[in-house]
């Protein structure tokens, strides 16, 4: 918790029962495991269990824990084969027992054209999955074996140490074989978690109630405290904050899904009761400036290194949330906090405000005594990125780097930076992995394979050495060993300076006065919905 003044969350007082309100800015609540991109600890986790899940504790890195499985998976064949065994007595909300075939079917289902859209890290890893079109055309995926109703075996294309994390992603939730054939499954999914859907009003609200067949004893990830949960959809972010600040009526039992915006953060700082109910993550997504290495102006590493000194991370902090405290600590590396393998180092030491002289000197050395630019700096128009871009722009200008901001719709931005052309010089964005492994920090952003074609290597950075390290680290089953390799890659990349790390973005959330156990761990920078309870 970022507020030393605030007392520790009143976890002692939380009790079973009551109705919890979740205020969401989204208008679609996806509850189909094949289509959901939810993290393991948010709404989807309330309804669906998976093979493994996450244990989130305050101030500690997230760890993987067994969920439906008895353990977190047993690798064999050097990490190419993984075996899981299901717990006894795990049942769906209709009372039928959950069997291994249902897990297999759930995963197969995610291959069907009708159910695209979810997390799909497993698709490239499962052997023979390239040509697989899902279970509805009559075929099964041979690389998933179900030798008996309690056992499930995955055969992968390559050794993959993080499979234990992959097994916590939504597609690894069970779907009774043969069910879920139509798109409306998302409105009435068959629950395996503590809650089931009682009503689903599109764009308005989703009501969850207890799944009586869920057994707390088999689940170490979920507390299942409230009796009922109401998810209010399509709420305006500012209004959510105002409601929670006002803390009236049912809003006492509510918390916010979207982050609290800077303006409200400022307001809350002056409001003692609300301030006690503001929870800020210790760390979070890496915010960074991308330098498009394929552009002539930025091709020279020396020029790119100048950016490391030219930026003003302090003003970026302020532009993001008003203060360093609320915005998040200064970043100098790529692997984010709360993830195994992270090493702290700083290749370009400078004060938070940057080292303009050093930057100028580097530029001079690179033959740009008069500065460079104007560079095409694209930013997208949500999450305050325009302001953040302006802060970066103003900082770069001090060192003679001229930029022109190009504001685009966030979808257009996505298409531009992940497209094949790559016609931009700079952009600023942030990145958070989908599961707490350094793979998620490095591979999507710096692997040569991820340039264009929808990949997020927006710096279009390509270094064969780095690519090799990535493959090597991914196939290392021992997390500690893998971590070391990732750390090496991290350093290597930073030497080439394709990106300028700015901060580890903290996220702030507000909750009502009757909410307890509202905890944000080291990773991810989101509250753990699964443990939240109401106080009496």
């Amino acid at each position: 918790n970022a507020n030393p003044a605030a007392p520790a969350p009143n976890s002692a007082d939380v009790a079973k029962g009551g109705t919890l309100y979740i205020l969401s800015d989204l208008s679609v609540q996806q509850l189909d495991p094949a289509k959901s991109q939810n993290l393991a600890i948010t709404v989807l986790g309330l309804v669906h269990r998976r093979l493994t899940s996450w244990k989130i504790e305050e101030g500690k890195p997230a760890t993987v824990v067994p969920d439906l499985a008895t353990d977190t998976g047993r690798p064999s064949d050097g990490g190419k084969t993984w075996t899981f065994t299901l717990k006894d007595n795990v049942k769906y909300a209709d009372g039928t027992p959950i069997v291994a075939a249902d897990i297999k079917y759930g995963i197969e289902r995610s291959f069907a054209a009708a159910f695209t859209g979810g997390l799909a890290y497993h698709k490239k890893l499962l052997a023979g999955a390239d040509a697989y079109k899902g279970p509805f055309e009559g075929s099964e995926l041979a690389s998933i074996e179900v030798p008996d109703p309690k056992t499930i075996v995955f055969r992968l294309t390559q050794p993959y140490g993080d499979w234990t994390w992959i097994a916590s992603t939504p597609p690894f939730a069970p779907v009774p074989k043969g069910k879920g054939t139509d798109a409306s499954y998302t409105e009435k999914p068959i629950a395996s978690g503590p809650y089931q859907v009682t009503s689903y009003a599109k764009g308005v609200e989703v009501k969850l109630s207890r799944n009586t067949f869920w057994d707390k004893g088999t689940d170490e990830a979920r507390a299942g405290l409230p009796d009922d949960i109401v998810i209010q959809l399509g709420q305006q972010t500012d209004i959510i904050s105002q409601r929670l600040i006002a803390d009236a009526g049912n809003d006492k039992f509510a918390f916010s899904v979207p982050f609290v915006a800077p303006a409200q953060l400022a307001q809350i700082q002056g409001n003692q009761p609300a301030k006690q109910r503001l929870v800020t993550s210790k760390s979070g997504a890496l915010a960074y400036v991308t330098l498009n290495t394929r552009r002539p102006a930025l091709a020279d590493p020396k020029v790119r290194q100048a950016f490391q000194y030219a930026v003003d991370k302090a003003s970026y902090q302020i532009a993001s949330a008003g203060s360093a405290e609320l915005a998040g600590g200064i970043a100098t590396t790529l692997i984010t906090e709360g993830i195994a393998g992270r090493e702290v180092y700083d290749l370009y030491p400078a004060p938070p405000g940057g080292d303009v002289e050093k930057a100028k000197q580097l530029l001079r050395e690179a033959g740009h005594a008069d500065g460079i630019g104007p560079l095409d700096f694209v930013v997208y128009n949500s999450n305050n990125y325009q302001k953040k871009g302006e802060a970066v722009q103003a900082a770069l200008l001090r060192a003679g780097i001229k930029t022109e901001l190009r504001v685009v719709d966030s979808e257009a931005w996505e298409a531009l930076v992940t497209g094949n052309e790559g016609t931009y010089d700079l952009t600023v964005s942030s990145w958070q992995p989908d599961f707490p492994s350094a793979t998620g920090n490095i591979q999507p952003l710096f692997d040569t394979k991820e340039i264009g074609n929808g990949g997020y290597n927006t710096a279009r950075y390509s270094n064969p050495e780095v690519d090799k390290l990535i493959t090597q680290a991914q196939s290392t089953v021992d997390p500690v060993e893998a971590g070391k390799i990732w750390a090496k890659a991290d350093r290597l990349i930073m030497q080439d300076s394709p990106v300028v790390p700015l901060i580890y973005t903290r996220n702030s959330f507000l909750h009502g006065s009757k909410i307890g156990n509202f905890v944000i761990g080291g990773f991810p920078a989101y509250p753990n919905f699964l443990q939240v309870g109401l106080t009496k």
Partner: protein
Amino acid sequence: MRVLRFLAGRLAGMLFVLLVISLCTYALFALLPSDPARMSCSKPCTPESLALARGFMGFDKPWIQQYLDFLGGIFAGRTFGSGPTAITCDAPCFGYSFLQNATVTDLITARMPVTVSLALGAAVIWLIGGVALGVFSALRRGKLPDRLSMAFTLAGVSAPTFLLGLLAILIFGFTFNMVPVSGYVALADDPVGWAWHLITPWLVLAAVHIAVYARLTRTQMLEVLGEDHIRTARAIGLAERTVIGKHALRNVALPVVTVFAMDLGGLLGGAVITERLFALPGLGGLLIDAVSLKDLPLLLGITVFAAVLVIVANFLADVCYGLLDPRARVH
């Protein structure tokens, strides 16, 4: 006979306009760099998974073909995918939103009552309020009450809707705790709750629009008051109230009705900001979702629907002209 011919002509015109609008919307989407299938693409979004999503939704075809499919769907219905996972959308099918898992028609019908409640309620307030203020201003032209009413209504147009709404929520919702700040109650379930939940949004929306009506009424009123027939109305001994409220006002109606039809027609297609702010599940919210999620089928559906409303409203205004002012009849 003439009336029938006129109606048929207008109807053909409307259909043509709808065709143009929907065609342009499709063409625009083709222009956009973003891909409607992207929102249904898995994460990570590999080219293969994108192609899969595209194929299922029918976005892999050339846009003109997609457009023709859309038109065909209206008459023959559509089916997406095949086998047990196929999605059918019965005729008249105005598209299927893959992100919301529902036919566009269902989505729109579900949201319509909210938007209609919001728009009509607000319209009544701003029409009556605006015209009344306009008349009041005209009669006190140049005096302090005139200027004050102008400043008051202009504050409404000058302030962004968002700010007005936020302030209304903060003041009436939180500070005085007088009205609910969000949500919608169906009229049929609880008429009082319905009005109670809508009163603030109505006022906010009305505040945004009232100025145009007040100002138009005022200026037209001044125009009309100088005409000879007003003198006659006074000479037969009509009360000033009747002279103004009936004889002059009727002559003011033309521009006011025109603007009203446009505003109402536009609003029925969704009062975007107000609906979002007050968490009213109306068409505006749906439209914003469609835009930000690049939900092409939904967007097209709402666009066509909203366009129908705009066009019909304008048509009704055109019909009204002849009734309100016989000289304005188009022969």
